[in-house]
Structures are given as structure tokens and as C-alpha cells.
């Protein structure tokens, strides 16, 4: 579903990503793991087309930004780390906007909204303006807006910030359901949760992919025991990378 091939990129005058390559297949939830400043958000911004790569190729479901910006963007929805909502639109109107932008059938949109709002305990808040939302509600609103689109690829940047434990559990269930016929790329620091729900992991360090694979594959790569957690694997991966450099 998502192919990132030898991506070099970053910000004006500062290259952050160096030959980043990975893929996310249909039916997969892939965890993008890295320290602060490892390049996770930069990678996501490149996939979303918010930054232009210096070189390399990004393809979502066979589309690239160059072939058709509109088609490409219709393949991906996004949940940012910091919620961004229009203060002038109610949550219901945000969902209407998503429906129009992604050409979602109005009946499907209404059905998905009803179900998701109920599951996320946001039914009452549909008619509210974001100015009265708590931090967690704002995050849930962003999640709701992204999930109703049902795009082939969902990108999630640190989704658990500001959510209560119940909401986190609910969100993970929704992700499990979403990925059945789509794909999810999730950037997170919460390794324990990632370990339980992600199918594969991509470890980023200083703008490079230092390892990728399932938890079992990564344990094997770093010669760790079967009891080693993702936390242990990650610490070992970083230590081994720093020993090499």
C-alpha cells in the first residue's frame, strides 16, 4: 500500500532523512519508532506531501504526488500529533468537510459517523465547536475525522497523547478493525502498546532506518531472547548503532 523508496529529505538547508526505505502492506499496522528528532514526523510530512523530497520515491496504492496530487491525497488520511481543528466548524461539519474532500458517499459517511461517534463516546460532541473541547476530545475529533474517510492508508502521529486509558483501548480496537482492508503507519513512543498492536516495526535513528521487521525478526537480528520486549529490542538497536558509529 505504501512504498517509501530511498527517501532523502528534510527542511530547507537541513537534510534530515537519509535513504529511508520501507513499506506498509494492506492489512498491516506498522509502527514507526524512533527517539525525539529521529525523523519520524519528517518522514510523515514527506508522505503527506507537506515537504518535498530531495530524492527518492513515495507511492501510495500505485499513486505518486507527481502523477496526480488529488488522487494521491485521496488515498491517505492523517491524525496529527497536535490536533488542528477549525474553530468555526462544529465536529459534525468537520466530518461533512472530510466527506466532501474525500468523496465519501453521504449515506456511508452518516453511518460511519454514527457508529464511530458512539464507540468513541463523542455523539454529544458532534454539534459542539472545538473551542469547548478538552485536549482529549480534540484528539478524538481528529481521529474521528480521519477514520470516517476509510482511505487505503491511515497515518497516525503519536495518537495516544491526551487520551485516557479507555479511549486508548477503544482507539486500538478501531485501528485493528480499520487495517483489515487498509494499512496504517503509526509513529509512537509508547512501545508497550505498539508491541501489542503493531504487525511490524521500522526503527528510525538519526534519519536512517536502522532495522525493520516483526518483533520476532528484530529479536533475532539483535540476538535477544524470546522474552525480550520491544523496549529491550529498541534499546539494543540504538546501543548497537551507537557502537558502530
Amino acid at each position, binding site marked *: 500500500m505504501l512504498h517509501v523508496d530511498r527517501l532523502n529529505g528534510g527542511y530547507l538547508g537541513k537534510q534530515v532523512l537519509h535513504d529511508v526505505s520501507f513499506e506498509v502492506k494492506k492489512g498491516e499496522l506498522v509502527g514507526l519508532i524512533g527517539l525525539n528528532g529521529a525523523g519520524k514526523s519528517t518522514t510523515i510530512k514527506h508522505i*503527506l*506531501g*507537506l515537504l518535498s523530497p530531495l530524492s527518492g520515491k513515495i507511492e501510495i496504492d500505485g499513486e505518486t504526488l507527481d502523477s496526480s*496530487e*488529488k488522487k494521491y*491525497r*485521496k488515498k*491517505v488520511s*492523517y491524525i496529527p500529533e497536535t490536533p*488542528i*481543528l*477549525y*474553530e*468555526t*466548524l462544529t465536529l459534525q*461539519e*468537520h466530518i*461533512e*468537510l*472530510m466527506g*466532501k*474532500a*474525500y468523496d465519501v458517499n453521504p449515506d456511508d459517511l452518516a453511518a460511519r459517523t454514527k457508529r464511530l461517534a458512539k464507540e468513541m463516546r463523542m455523539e454529544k460532541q458532534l454539534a459542539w*465547536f472545538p*473551542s469547548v473541547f478538552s485536549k482529549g476530545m480534540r484528539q478524538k475529533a481528529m481521529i474521528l*475525522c480521519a477514520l470516517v474517510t476509510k482511505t487505503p492508508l491511515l497515518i497516525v502521529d503519536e495518537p495516544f497523547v491526551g487520551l485516557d486509558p479507555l479511549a486508548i483501548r477503544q482507539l486500538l480496537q478501531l485501528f485493528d478493525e480499520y487495517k483489515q482492508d487498509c494499512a496504517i503507519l503509526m509513529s509512537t513512543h509508547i512501545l508497550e502498546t505498539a508491541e501489542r498492536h503493531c504487525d511490524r516495526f521500522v526503527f528510525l535513528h538519526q534519519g536512517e532506518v536502522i532495522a525493520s521487521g516483526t518483533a520476532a525478526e528484530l529479536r533475532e537480528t539483535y540476538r535477544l531472547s524470546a522474552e525480550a520486549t520491544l523496549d529491550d529490542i529498541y534499546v539494543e538497536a540504538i546501543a548497537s548503532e551507537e557502537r558502530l558509529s
Partner: protein
Amino acid sequence: MNRFTARLGNWMEEVVKYSRYVANGGLLFTLYFTLIYGAFVYNNFLERIDGTFPGVWIAAVVLLIMPLGHRPRTFIQEADQVFLLPELGDIRPYMIGVRLFNLVFAALRGLLVLLVLLPLLVRTESYSSIEVLSFVVTMVLLSAAGRLAKVEGVREWTILPFALGSGFLLLMDWTQWAWIPAFAPFILLHLKRNERIPLLHWLTLEEKSRAQFERVISWFVDLPTLKEEVRERRLITRLLDKRVLQHVDASRYVYGLRIIRSNDSLDLILRLTVVALIVMWMSGGWYVGFVTPLFVGLTALQLVPLFKRLEAVSIVSWLPITRDERIEGYSWWALRLLVIQSIVLVIASVAFGATWDAAVGLVLSIVVIRYYLRRLK
């Protein structure tokens, strides 16, 4: 250098910086033209009135308004909630600085209003120099009282009875004593003054004042961080929802709702249209038709930075809506609103005595609209 002088210095640097942008912006001519035109219209208006005009009643109403609507500055920053806490008990020079600063600006506001009001009073009333002086002092005192009331966290309306007292003396022709009720609120304010900085209250005041400053600057310079006020406007939204919003694309939908609900768009158009109607009423000459392009231009001038602000931090940056579609969506609304405003003002100008100049005004308005909409790109 104490903390207040340091922050005052930063503020002055900021004002100088933005003044330079404003001066270089090239849009100042619209404002200059409006001011010159306004002065011209006002002068004509004054020549047409005599002692029967209720100038003193207008002055009394202005006295009532003077304490209201102030946005005092406190120079408090968000980080002060943490870093200023240890100093809160010993920060009197800062508080005195803030009070003096606001006193000066309140006095300036009073004097600016006097620039307009005094010629009217001189024309309609036969005041002695003592009465004029008393009126000037009254205006300045009421303006300062309103501003300082906000600084001290006292409700503005507590100043209104004193303003009412001054207005009453004015109407009773005891103008030389009007300053006495205007001075009285300062006793109340002294008694209710804060001994320590009310941090959250002063932070809110600073944010609101800064937003107002930025709103004016945004007419000339793009300020993406500017916040807007939102009103639900259920009736207009419902009216437009089925007829327009449900049938338009995503960009027209999002900008339509923002224009309806933001105080920077529909409110702005209504405010400027009302001001234009007042100017037309006051002028009543052959040039009344030229009010239309002038005020349509002023409206368009402010709608352009609004779009740039919407663009800066926006969900649509990652949605499948291209920049061309966004510009088209916003232009679609802006064009319709500005054309409606032009038509309303042209009809009004005809009612106020315009003839051929109404048609010229309409043509000029369309040229102005096209010019400003091109600036969206």
C-alpha cells in the same frame, strides 16, 4: 532596567517594526484616502448644521461610550505563569508601569475622539474656554477610568453611572462641573486596586489587546497566528446549509462556514457597510457615489489577509484539496459578498442623492474587487 521597561522597550521595537511594514505595504493609500475623504465629508456636514443640531446630546452619548471597549495592555506573557510566580509579591514597579502606560493610551483615545467631537460642539454650542477645558478633562478622565477599571478587574459598567452623571451635567448646561463625576471613579479604583498582579486576568487582557493590534496589522502584513472570534449564527447557517453548503465542494464549504461565523468576515462587511451608509448620510452631495468603491475597497483589503491566515495553519493542507481549489473556493465567496455589498451601497447612494456617480462608483468597485481578489494568489 526593570522588567516593565524591558517589556516596554520590546513593545516599542515591535511597533516600529510593524510601522515600517505598514508604511511599505502600499495599501496605506486606501486609508489615507478614507481619512481625507472622511474629513472632507465631516467638514461639509459641519457647515450645514446650526445651533438646533443636538450636538450636546451626541457629546453626552459619547461620554457614556468613553469608558467602554478598552483593550488595556499588560505585557504579561504566558511563561510568566511559571517564571514570574516567585516575584509576584514584590513587583510594584511593574504594576505602576502598566497603569501609567494604560493611562497615557486612554488619554490619547479620549483626545482622538475630541478631535472629531470638539468641532461639532464648537459649531452647535457657545462654550467658554473653561467649559471646553472641562469637557476635554471629562473625556480623558472617563476614558482612563474605563481602561484602568479593566486593568484592576473592576467591571466596566461600574464606571457608567459616573459617565451618566457627567453627561447629565453637560445636558443641564453645567459643563464646567462635568469633570467632577468623571473624577469620582478613581477613588473607587484606588480602593479596589490590586496589590499583586492578577496573573491570569492580566494575561487574558494582554492576549485580547495583542489580538486587536495584530488584527489591524494584518490588513497590511500577513500574520498567520492571528486568532478570530467565532459566533454560531445558527439561522444564517441553516438558511445557507440546504440551498448552498450541501451542494458546494469541500473548499467552498469550509470557507463558507468560516466567512459566516468569523468576526473577521461577515461582521466586518456589515460594520463597514453601516459606516458607509452613515458617511453617505452625512455627505449628501454629488460625490456620494464614490463612497461605494471606497468602502468596498476597505472590505476587500481586509478579506485578503483573512484567506492567507486560513491557509497558514489548516487541515486542508493535507486533504485532497489543491491550493488552486482553495483560492477558487475563497474567491467564490469573497466575490459574491463584495458584489452584494457594492449593489447595496450603490442603491443606498442613489437614495442619498447620487446620479451618474453611482454608476461610476459601481464600475470602480468592480475594478477594486478584481484587484484585491488577484492578491489572493
